[in-house]
């Protein structure tokens, strides 16, 4: 119907243009320079099917606001000083006088999108055709039905074909049911049911509700809606599970360092969050440094930042242990206070140097964006953090199991006095364990810089959750830390959709508090006579 009307309009324009004296080049393009937006829109729609060789370039220029008109009806595409005649595609030497941009309004934009999709359907590249089919699927503009049918008749690519079928189905169902079209509509319902997604659900739900619809179609649509709902819910659960895993992996990174120092030295490092914060700032500095010196390496700056952050934070950790913690040996609660004081100083120092506002840590292109897996959206940076956390945990296990330092650290964790008697230099182990813990916090900082705001307060937002992981998981057992991090991460995200983010957080805190009361030594406690209660 709309198509018919716009066709009439175009015809009328043509006629008008031909009849009006003094207007040059009355052709498929001339309506574009009309002062009336609906004329321009109609011309845009008509252009797509016109087969005019310059149509694609002209429409693109229009969309990018590079299409200009002259008072005498000339059309030009102008990029800066370069100017070409839109009708011929030939460059013009002299920029004509009185160029005026062709303005866009919503109507024209809508027409433009439809026209570009229609043209995309016949593009030689399959991915452009797929995109065009996607666009049409979302529009279900009845005017496009003919174009869709035409495209389907020539399309060979299976993916594009399926999408075209779905676009066609959506378009058909969006129209009011007509006489004798029941089979076509049933077919369309089936096609949409297979497509799934919120879009299809919306259309199908509309069909199921519609009184004008034939009963079998309504039933089929209803069944399709339920099936889609089920799928959406299943994918929703998976999506939340992914978010949970992702948050759990951040917690894991943040908490392993804490767990190690707590396990070896019985000390809770309240400045651990600040170590993470410093790790994030180091990432930023490495990026800035590489950008200033070797811009070609910028995409891998984040990889360079990993060892640098580990080294910087690790060195800082050793320094803190030697300069502060060792004087408080045997007084774990006092250590808690002293490291809290240290965290205040570190925060304020970073605030003084870098300013109190967020800094922009770049996410390299290869970590941006997301991939769709079924109905799930996997963001690449979160996926990378998940993998990174796994690698860090694996590396840490190797260090603890296969290196002399790891052996010594495990010995000191289990029985400090005995370890000392066997000739292990416990002060050295303490310093290195603290350095290792701080270095791990630095690594966590690198990871967090990719998904969170980096400001001097960064550490504060992670520290309590990290504590929860450590006390939940128990001491001296990395598996415990892993299980606790994932349980807390998943728990929060599973509760989030039903009770909201803040309430989920509160609920998790309360649950951990209650859990600790039942299992005061965490999930994986060390039992035996040697353990003092």
């Amino acid at each position, binding site marked *: 119907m709309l198509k018919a009307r716009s066709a009439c309009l175009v015809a009328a324009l043509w006629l008008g243009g031909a009849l009006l004296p003094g207007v040059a080049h009355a052709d498929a393009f001339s309506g574009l320079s009309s002062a009336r937006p609906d004329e321009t829109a109609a011309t845009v729609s008509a252009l797509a099917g016109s087969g005019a060789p310059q149509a694609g370039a002209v429409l693109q220029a229009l969309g990018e606001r590079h299409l200009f008109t002259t008072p005498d009806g000339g059309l030009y595409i102008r990029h800066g000083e370069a100017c070409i005649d839109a009708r011929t595609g030939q460059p013009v030497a002299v920029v004509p006088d009185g160029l005026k941009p062709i303005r866009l309004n919503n109507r024209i934009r809508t027409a433009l999108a439809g026209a570009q999709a229609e043209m995309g359907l016949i593009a030689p590249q399959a991915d452009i055709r797929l995109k065009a089919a996607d666009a049409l699927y979302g529009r279900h503009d009845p005017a496009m039905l003919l174009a869709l049918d035409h495209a389907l008749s020539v399309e060979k690519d299976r993916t594009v074909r399926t999408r075209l079928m779905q676009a066609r189905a959506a378009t058909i169902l969006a129209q009011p049911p007509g006489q004798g079209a029941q089979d076509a509509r049933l077919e369309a319902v089936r096609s949409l049911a297979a497509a799934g997604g919120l879009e299809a659900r919306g259309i199908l739900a509309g069909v199921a509700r519609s009184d004008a619809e034939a009963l079998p179609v309504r039933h089929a649509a209803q069944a399709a809606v339920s099936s889609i709902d089920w799928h959406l819910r299943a994918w929703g659960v998976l999506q939340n599970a992914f978010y949970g895993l992702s948050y759990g992996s951040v917690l894991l990174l943040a908490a392993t360092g804490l767990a190690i120092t*707590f396990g070896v030295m*019985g000390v*809770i490092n309240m400045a651990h969050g600040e170590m993470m914060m410093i790790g994030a700032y180091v990432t930023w500095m490495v990026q800035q440094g590489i950008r200033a010196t070797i811009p070609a390496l910028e995409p891998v700056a984040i990889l360079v930042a990993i060892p640098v952050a580990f080294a910087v934070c690790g060195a800082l950790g050793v320094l803190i242990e030697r300069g*502060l913690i060792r*004087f*408080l040996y*045997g*007084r*774990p*609660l*006092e*250590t*808690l*206070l*002293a490291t*809290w*004081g*240290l*965290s*205040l*100083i570190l*925060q*304020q*120092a970073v605030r*003084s140097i870098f300013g109190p506002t967020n800094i922009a840590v770049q996410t390299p292109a290869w970590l941006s964006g997301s991939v769709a897996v079924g109905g799930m959206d996997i963001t690449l940076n979160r996926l990378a953090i998940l993998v990174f956390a796994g690698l860090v945990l694996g590396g840490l296990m190797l260090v603890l199991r296969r290196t002399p330092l790891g052996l010594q650290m495990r010995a000191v964790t289990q029985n400090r006095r005995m370890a000392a008697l066997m000739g292990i230099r416990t002060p050295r182990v303490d310093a290195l364990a603290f350095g290792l813990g701080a270095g791990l916090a630095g690594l966590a900082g690198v990871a967090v810089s990719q998904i969170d705001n980096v400001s001097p307060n960064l550490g504060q937002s992670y520290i*309590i959750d990290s*504590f*929860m992981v*450590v*006390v939940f998981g128990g001491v001296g057992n990395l598996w415990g830390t892993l299980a606790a991090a994932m349980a807390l991460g998943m728990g929060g995200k599973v509760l989030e959709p039903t009770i909201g983010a*803040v*309430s989920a*957080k*509160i609920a998790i*805190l*309360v649950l*951990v*508090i*209650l859990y*600790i*009361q*039942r299992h*005061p*030594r965490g999930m994986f406690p060390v039992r035996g006579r040697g353990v003092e*209660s």
Partner: protein
Amino acid sequence: MNPFSTHGTRSFRGVIWMAAAVVVAAGGLAMASLLPEGNPLHASAFVVSLAGKYLAYAMLALSVDLVWGFAGILTLGHAAFFALGGYAMGMYLMREIGARGVYGNASLPDFMIFLSWKSLPWYWWGSDHFAWAAFLVLAVPGVLAGVFGWLAFRSRVSGVYLSIITQALTYALMLAFFQNGLGFGGNNGLTDFKDILGADLHAPMTRAVLLVVTGVLLAASLLAARFVVGSRFGNLLVAVRDAENRTRFLGYRPDQVKLLVWVFSAMIAGLGGALYVTQVGIINPGEFAPANSIESVIWVAVGGRGTLCGAVLGAILVNLGKTLFTAWLPEFWLYGLGLLFICTTLFLPQGIMGLWRHVRKPAPEEVTPEVSDTQGDET
């Protein structure tokens, strides 16, 4: 190992002096505030409310000292009890505004009308009665402390674990109170108070009386705390702190011992919070911030852990320092506070009171009025 072994017989005689000094100072300042403005001794409203704030904080410090200094429980969440007391009093002050709020509703506070609530939530019941508010000021922190402590001490959560979960407790409460749906004004908290018991909160006389009341209640808390720690129970508390297992094999239940002092301490903190809110004029979820609780621990550490006077002294000194510091060098306050934490733990484990005892050490303990009196009786 134990820094307090130097005073096996603990008499806390100084506490009485401290209590007296607090009352005298609060009374003096209150009177000074009532002098005409031209008078050189006149104390401004700002100074009076500042002093009231310090004394309220001193009660928080006292409550922290009771559990940390005497029962060995390093609480990182005591500000939660303080804030709960404050909210309980704030509810009453909110209702006292009556129809004088922006929306002029006699029974609903402004923020509830803003959220288009139709009636008061059930837990606001009775909040228009001062007596009920006063009861809640003690009961809410007491009950929360009771439940939390009963769970924690019974299952022998101790040391760093306990510290961390007290912090989680106050953090969870902070998140909860930030939510509008909880019915305590969300972000903004409770504020814009007008009257207390019909007296204008902004009148100099009311403020002076409030300051005196705060001073008297602080003194009373000090004496009550002295009674507790000076009794046989105080000995038991120290015994539990230093050798919990031993007390268990003697037939005591350390969990009950700790619970009793924990609840008592939470009530003092709640009372402090209630006095705080009347004089500062606002209570918001920021009071639950874990940082506040940890700061209150450092007041105690600076003053001297395990000495009741030290807690009061530390709270007043550190907050005075904070006021001055933030006025002169605002950026450097966090450096100062951070250094205070580090230096106190490293170099002054017994705080100012420890330093004081050290200076006075040459004077033998036996030469005290009480002892010479009894000797006099015998001869």
